[in-house]
């Protein structure tokens, strides 16, 4: 019996020691000491609701990316067909997305279809019909596998781009992960300027250079008649005095002469003449060549710099620009120029993203929540400890010791699994305090019952523990079941609640059944067998 007891004491001391080692790294300031370097790298993570930060759910418009890709394929088909002396005209993306295109010369059908099969294996022919003027109209669509692959690539690319931008923006420990339904979850702890971060993350940053057509009559522009291959985009008018200038319509060629994919670097820079900020761009070799050719061919014309469908500036090309450098001016503030440089450097998002959910907790509220949670926990614990000591005497003291141990073990469990402590999580700890007490109350009430039946102390304690055990197991099982369901379906803070609840329940069973029993056994072994027990 005693040997057995000794082993149980050793086990509990080991558990306690492990718990303390797991918890110590979470103590403030301990990392810098010599002791801190020896300790394991376990610490309790605070959730965004406690340390402040931004939680975003972004929806990636994958359909749009697939559509863009389809348009690109349309151009490719045209180019490849031309090499084989086949004329394909009017490639056009329809909903679905499907691609319609017309082949000139019905006799060329076989050659064209062989070409499709060879070079465009990801497409299938939905339908074809003969048209007037010896043309055949084809409707093509992507194979489902290819669509799936594209969607995956788009999401991967989006995650990569967003991570890139956030890293350049300078956020410590960002958490970016893909979710089902073409969503991306972004968590940025401890950020002081959420609006800017959101603007940087959410910007598509699709940069295009388009030639301006200044020959269109202003009256025609107002009516929207701009001729084929042209489109109207807003030219942003931003003077330093009032930022809200009115945008002017600008007619540009639909096909961009160059896009942002050739950018290797982008930097915010200050302009010497007017102290405003602009963004300097550096192109790669291919981009530099394209830019040189375009500027050479279009001297005295205007080149519009278009970002996400809005023109920032449309300077007149004075001379051929060699060397692969360009500049976006637009009366930026320093922050705006810096943020724009970040998104251009990190690359465009492969598809537009929208913010589906945003939760921002300021650092003051986080700290307030921590303080409030601590106060509530402390007061709850003190009230329960006092009650137990008064109501159960010595046994109550055991219960209290076990209660403290339970809190320590629960926190150690959080540290061990790298779980996140949230505000509902603190509520979970408070609930677990109540539940830990419940296990003890169950046992003690049972012991009291057995004592009333006339059993001796040792026997009553023995029976009390044995009989209460089943009830404790049964009743806690349902709590664990519910907590698992909560974890499965809950969002961040609620998951934190579920985790503390499960840990707390498991620890409370261990402490109430195993550890408090040891205390009782020691207590009883030091007393005569028929002495009364304080319970």
């Amino acid at each position, binding site marked *: 019996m005693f040997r057995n007891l000794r082993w149980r004491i050793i086990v509990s001391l080991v558990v306690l020691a492990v718990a303390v080692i797991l918890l110590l790294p979470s103590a403030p300031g301990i990392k810098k000491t010599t002791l801190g370097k020896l300790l394991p790298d376990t610490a309790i993570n605070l959730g965004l*609701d406690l340390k402040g930060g931004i939680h975003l759910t972004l*929806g990636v418009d994958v359909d749009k990316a697939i559509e863009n890709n389809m348009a690109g394929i349309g151009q490719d088909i045209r180019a490849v067909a031309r090499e084989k002396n086949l004329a394909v005209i009017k490639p056009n993306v329809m909903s679905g997305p499907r691609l319609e295109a017309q082949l000139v010369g019905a006799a060329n059908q076989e050659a064209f279809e062989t070409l499709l099969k060879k070079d465009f294996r990801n497409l299938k022919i939905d339908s074809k019909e003969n048209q007037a003027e010896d043309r055949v109209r084809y409707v093509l669509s992507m194979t489902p596998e290819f669509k799936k692959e594209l969607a995956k690539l788009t999401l991967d690319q989006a995650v990569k781009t967003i991570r890139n931008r956030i890293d350049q923006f300078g956020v410590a420990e960002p958490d970016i992960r893909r979710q089902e*339904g073409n969503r991306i979850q972004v968590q940025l702890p401890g950020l002081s300027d*959420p*609006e800017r971060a*959101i*603007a940087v993350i959410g910007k598509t940053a699709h940069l295009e250079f388009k030639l301006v057509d200044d020959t269109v009559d202003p009256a025609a522009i107002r009516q929207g008649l701009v001729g084929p291959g042209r489109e109207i985009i807003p030219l942003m008018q931003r003077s330093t005095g009032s930022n809200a200038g009115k945008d002017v319509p600008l007619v540009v060629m639909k096909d961009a002469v160059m896009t942002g994919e050739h950018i290797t670097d982008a930097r915010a820079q200050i302009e010497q003449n007017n102290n405003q900020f602009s963004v300097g761009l550096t192109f790669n070799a291919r981009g530099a060549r394209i830019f040189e050719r375009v500027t050479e061919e279009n001297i005295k014309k205007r080149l519009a710099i278009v970002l996400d469908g809005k023109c920032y500036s449309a300077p007149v090309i004075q001379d051929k620009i060699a060397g692969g450098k360009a500049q976006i001016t637009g009366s930026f503030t320093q922050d705006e120029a810096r943020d724009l440089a970040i998104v251009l450097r990190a690359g465009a998002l492969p598809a537009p993203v929208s*913010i*589906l*959910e*945003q*939760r*921002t907790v*300021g650092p*003051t*509220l986080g700290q307030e*929540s921590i303080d*409030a949670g601590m106060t*509530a926990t402390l*007061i*709850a614990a003190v*009230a*329960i400890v006092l*009650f137990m000591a*008064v*109501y*159960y005497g010595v046994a109550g003291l055991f219960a209290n010791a076990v209660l403290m141990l339970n809190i320590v073990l629960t926190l150690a469990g959080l540290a061990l699994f790298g779980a996140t402590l949230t505000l*509902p999580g*603190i*509520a979970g700890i*408070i*609930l677990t*305090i*109540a*539940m830990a*007490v*419940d296990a003890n*109350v*169950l046992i003690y*009430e049972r012991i*009291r019952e057995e004592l*009333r039946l006339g059993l001796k102390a040792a026997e009553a304690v023995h029976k009390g523990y044995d*009989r209460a055990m*089943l009830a404790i197991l049964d*009743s*806690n099982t*349902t*709590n664990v*079941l*519910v*907590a698992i*369901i*909560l974890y*499965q*379906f809950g*969002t961040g803070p*609620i998951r934190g*609640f579920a985790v503390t*609840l499960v840990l707390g329940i498991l620890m409370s069973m261990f402490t109430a059944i195993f550890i408090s029993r040891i205390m009782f056994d020691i207590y009883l072994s030091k007393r005569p067998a028929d002495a009364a027990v*304080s319970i």
Partner: protein
Amino acid sequence: MSFHLIKPNTKIDFIGLRYYAFALSALMILAGMTSMVLKGGPRYGIDFAGGVILQTKFETPVKIDDLKKSLEATNLPGLVVQQLGKDKDSEYLIRTSLMENVTSAQVQKTVSDAMTKDLAGSKYTFKRIEMVGPKVGEDLRGKALEALYYAILLIAIYISGRFEHRWMAACIMAAGLFAGITALQYFNAPQVWLVLGALVITLALCFFLKLNYALGAIVALIHDVLVTAGIFSILNKEFDLTIIAALLTLIGYSLNDTIIVYDRIREVRGMRTGETLPQVINHSVNNTLSRTVLTSGLAFLAVFSLFIFGGDVIHDFALAMLIGIVVGTYSSIYVAAPIIVSLTPPEHLAAPVAPLKAKAKA
């Protein structure tokens, strides 16, 4: 030598009181449901309804009426301004619904502009900004319902298996429930119907398979959720994710109490005392009463501390738990156990009961 809240030999005739208890329960549920119907369904928080919340703290005192007047001029849809804490804190919760193509940044700007214009000189900070889009709101509603559904399923299976040693029946029930729900899904029934369907199927299966304990426990759970949700509606509180979490937790908690009572009933039945079923149940409830009252009291105490000191963010969660603890304790004593008596055919009530295990083998 030691204290007793409940005297050791308490003998309250809970079974005799059961009709009063049923009436009281019916009254509470009816009141809650009436409130819900009158208010056009539960009041959803932004988690479920979508919308924007701006928790705004002013550094200098600003009256709520001034703030309201200022914001009402902006014509933001579904505007609600609510005071947090005390008057001197000047802290407010501003909530609006979400419109098509309007981002939270724009709502934030509209609010900022209005406050800068009308409440000049009062510096403020947004301590918390939450925006839930309609799509996410819909998803979260779905997830909450799914969680409720799985909770019912698992608990029903666990109780019937554990307490009646009829894992076979429990499995039949699980299969029936699963089949029923799959059928409903096949017909594309909305999720609310799925959960209601799951409930009805569970109750019906428990009834026909004579899983009286499981049925009692589930009725008690439904009772707890309905009463708590009803009181929330009467108090004009919002339902959001944390409240659903609180409801699920209280399901676990109330079940905890119920199981302790059932556990004792099982034990007393095993002792072959020659008592009739109502006597056994009274005996068991009275035996465990001290524990029930103590634990619930202490849990109430702990959550009450959270309610008072835990801050605004967790306030409603704590309130739901507080209500739930009281209702859950009541239902374990007055609903879950007495319902077993009501479900047993009258001719069996007068006879001494057999232990549960023996019945299972038969």
